[in-house]
């Protein structure tokens, strides 16, 4: 929450430095709050910051893990990739970017992951499906034990649909709208295997094959007109609708 008239929004901690007492967050300027947050200058304060909340990422030795990420999730998945590597996994990262100019965060991943594939589009924002071919390539070439995906909801849904026929355990990091972040309001409720869960306390990671994607997409768009998102974030051209 940036100031006293601000809004509470969920952010993913992309990295931290316990010695320095700092954390790193990465976000897109989309709505009112992220615009405000982007205008904060060095030395300024934000009114309120709470966390870490929710459950920690599930890390163990799985074997080969493919991480399919896009947008700001490219940066937020760095600690997950690092821990997966530390646990002894082979980690393949597939990054989706709308265009080559809008790719970021890949440098850090190249240093830690075993393999990084970038799938850059033509800048149109329209198709997130480009990550699916590289993903299928990996699945064809080697035994994949687990897939982790974070990014736009439609991309995560397509990733889930792609891995399901292969029965590859797939985990999605969900990002519904939240208010308090402590399990109090139920704004972030998601339907997982027919059951209602609160992403703020039960998540953010869920079994991607059990997620009711249509409900999540609809709920994420609840305020997309009120908060005056840029056109390409309003899902107007999205094939899912």
């Amino acid at each position, binding site marked *: 929450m940036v100031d006293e008239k601000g809004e509470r929004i969920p952010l993913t901690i992309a990295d931290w430095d316990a010695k320095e007492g700092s954390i790193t967050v990465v976000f897109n300027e989309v709505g*009112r709050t992220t615009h405000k947050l982007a205008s904060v200058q060095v030395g300024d304060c934000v009114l309120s910051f709470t966390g870490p909340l929710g459950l920690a990422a599930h890390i163990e030795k799985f074997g080969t893990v493919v991480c399919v990420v896009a947008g700001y999730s490219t940066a937020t998945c760095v600690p997950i990739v690092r821990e997966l590597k530390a646990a002894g996994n082979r980690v393949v990262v597939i990054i989706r970017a709308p265009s080559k100019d809008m790719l970021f965060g890949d440098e850090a991943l190249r240093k830690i992951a075993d393999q990084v594939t970038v799938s850059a589009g033509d800048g149109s924002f329209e198709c997130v499906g480009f990550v699916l071919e590289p993903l299928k390539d990996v699945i064809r070439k080697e035994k994949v034990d687990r897939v982790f995906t974070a990014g736009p909801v439609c991309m995560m849904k397509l990733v889930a649909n792609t891995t399901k026929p292969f029965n590859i355990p797939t985990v999605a990091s969900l990002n519904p709208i939240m208010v*308090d972040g402590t*399990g109090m309001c139920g704004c972030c409720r998601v339907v997982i295997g027919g059951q209602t869960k609160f992403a703020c306390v039960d998540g953010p990671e869920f079994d991607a094959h059990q997620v009711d994607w249509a409900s999540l997409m609809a709920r994420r*768009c609840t305020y997309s007109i*009120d908060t005056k998102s840029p056109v390409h974030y309003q899902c107007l051209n999205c094939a899912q*609708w």
Partner: protein
Amino acid sequence: MPPKLNLNRMEMPRQDPHVRGKNFKEVALGYSPEQAQEEASRCIQCPKRPCISGCPVNVDIPDFIEAMRKGNLPGAVKILKGKNALPGICGRVCPQESQCEAKCTLEKRKAPVAIGRLERFVADWERQNKSALPPPPPSPAPTGKKVAVVGSGPAGLTVAAEMAKLGHAVTMFEALHVAGGVLMYGIPEFRLPKAIVQGEVDYVKSLGVELVLDSVIGKVDTVDELLSNGYHAVFLGTGAGLPMFLQVPGEDLCGIYSANEFLTRTNLMKAYLFPEYDTPLGMGMNVAVIGGGNVAMDSARCALRLGARNVYIVYRRSAAELPARHEEVENAMEEGIVFKFLTNPTGFLGGGRGWVTAMQCVEMELGEPDASGRRRPIVKKGSDFVMKVDTVVVSLGTSPNPLIAATTEGLKTTSHGTVVADEKTGKTVKDKVWAGGDIVTGSATVISAMGAGKRAAADMHAFLAT
């Protein structure tokens, strides 16, 4: 000869229903000094003083009223605050009709003294006349004991104030960015102005209580970490924050809110001032609020003020069973809220992009009394019908947030998720940990949480003194 009984209970001025339905300013305007004086003089100072036993914190009601009658307002403040640290809040939100006023001797003549309104008058007078009051008593000698209070709602504020007054070093942890708990996020501005809540929080801080915001105990630190970090006792006053849903098809459609979300957006985040404030809350034309408690009334009246055209309270029992405070039901009816009694939702229908468009309902009838003593609602066969709605607020009550119980070893909980604590002392089964308020009882009232806080504080003090 005793003075003649005055059975004309003084009405409190209120904003006109047509005007107040469009603003968030306080509805009840409070007594004028003359009105307060006249109402105070109606108390017959009966020897049995039954009203005191009706108050969960046992305020010496006849004494503060007598001080008022004599024009001794500083005296009235002192008597009131001796037992109740938050009178400005209780005077506004207590269900007096089922507590002190229900026990009033004049209740038999259907004209109980308006104790709540008098309490409010005294508290408001104090706020506006700080300089006329004697200076606060000097701080007590520090005991050297550290107390952690988790949650800054009614129970937490009470424990923090009591323990600080006894000389303990108190730290109060709050998960949100502002203190006050349900008094801030739940109860709307038009019923309990937030400046009054913050005034009471400031009073508690003035006693030496350290307030730590943005601190979710159970996540950032656990209760056990607090105990091993030097706190000698911990009080859990985290309330009942987990919203219950109907568990019917379509409940995850857009436009369906828990009352917690709806009220948090409106009150805590000030969605009624969007876009000056950043938190939005889209409001439809036809709003259904499911439930019959105070929270349902608050939600319905907020919806009206946010611009809804038709607001319905949908309640499965009848008017006689409404658990809400009488005054709020009356206010809601005056403002044009439509009550659909003996009606129960069975599902929701959605339209384009997953927004709710209609609610399927059945009619109910009342059968034999159930465990709560209220007549049990039974479905009337073949009574299905559909209501056109575009916003729904589910206000069925709340249960405690499981976060603390799940992260605290050795804490016992019931099947309802409430923490087990001794009714008289608030002591949990875990060493050095007390609990009180909604976390123990499930959703109840502000004053019962304060009562539990007082009892827990007394027991914690006794423990720390040994």
